[in-house]
């Protein structure tokens, strides 16, 4: 499947994109900057405001039953989102706090923001809930069923079943 029947955007889904059964993707416009691979599981809803800003080595894997309201995922690494996750509007998931769209020019290689290398990339566990305008940065490892408060800035581990809020983020409930 390369073209979404309902789409207002004339583009096709890039090669390397997969959309699971009964899933909804609002438009191929979500991938109009995407140079990497996006794999969306079954029974997912991916809504307007979501953009996959992937460099050529970028990979996003999303499990089943995820609801993604308006997330920008900007990475040239790996982002893994487990099943049954909720991601609210204006969330940004990025491999650098100064993330740029793939292919953006820069004044010189020394001046180009570089992500800190984290072998696991960014992980959002099964059943996690990410609040509005939270920022999930390289090195974030959000455990199963964790809750991330609105506006939180996460760049480390959040234990399973806990709630983390704030900038910088702190675990506030267990």
């Amino acid at each position, binding site marked *: 499947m390369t073209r979404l029947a309902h789409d*207002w*955007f*004339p*583009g096709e889904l890039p090669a390397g994109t997969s959309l699971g059964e009964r899933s909804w993707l609002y438009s191929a*416009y979500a991938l*109009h900057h995407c140079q990497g691979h996006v794999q969306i599981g079954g029974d997912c809803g991916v809504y307007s405001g979501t953009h996959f800003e992937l460099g050529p080595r970028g990979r996003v894997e999303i499990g089943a039953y995820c609801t993604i309201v308006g997330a*920008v995922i*900007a990475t040239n690494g790996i982002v893994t989102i487990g099943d049954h996750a909720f991601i609210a509007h*204006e969330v*940004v998931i*990025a491999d650098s*706090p*100064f*993330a*740029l*769209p793939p292919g*953006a*020019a*820069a*004044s010189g290689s020394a*001046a180009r*923001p570089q992500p800190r290398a984290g072998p696991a990339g960014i992980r959002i566990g099964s059943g996690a809930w990410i609040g509005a*305008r939270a*920022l999930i*940065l390289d090195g974030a490892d959000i455990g199963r069923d964790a809750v991330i408060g609105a*506006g939180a*800035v996460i760049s480390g581990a959040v234990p399973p079943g806990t709630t983390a809020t704030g*900038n*910088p983020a702190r675990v506030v409930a267990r």
Partner: protein
Amino acid sequence: MSFDVRTVTGEWDYSALASNVQLGRGCWIERPQSFERFRSIRTPGAVLGDGVAVYGWTVFNVEAGGVVTVGPRSILVGAVFMCQERIAVGSDVIISYNVTIADSDFHPRDPVLRRLDAEASAPAGDPAARPPIEAQPVHIEDGAWIGIGAIILKGVRVGAAARVGAGAVVTRDVPAGATVEGNPARLVNR
């Protein structure tokens, strides 16, 4: 009316912009919608230097007396400018996703004046009756990087090559080369 894909790729006709928007050589503006709320009557009202890239999440909300200038080679991903008087961005600046930059509070801090503002701002209100608000220009100097989701408030000068961390809310000047993080933003040692 069919959808024109050039309005999302930066390949639309830039001469359709207001005549007081000055573009340098090699500017790229992804979407004309970035200028939908550009209402400046100043000459010029906006200046984009050579090689400036403006991604579709960037919005120039500029009031009648406002001027926004952006130096060469700066990259504006999601810079939402709220400009009453003056916002100046230098060269080689990077502004990431979901950033807000405002040179004014836009409404009175005083509650009595603010109620008057609420009534004057109503659809049937008289805009000329709005209490005057003082703007304080914002400067983002050469080579600074503004992180995802940051908010730069009125009167702030972000120094050359400074780093404003993701989610920071900046209310005070940032020294050249320094890094600030948090809400409110504080200097961090790097």
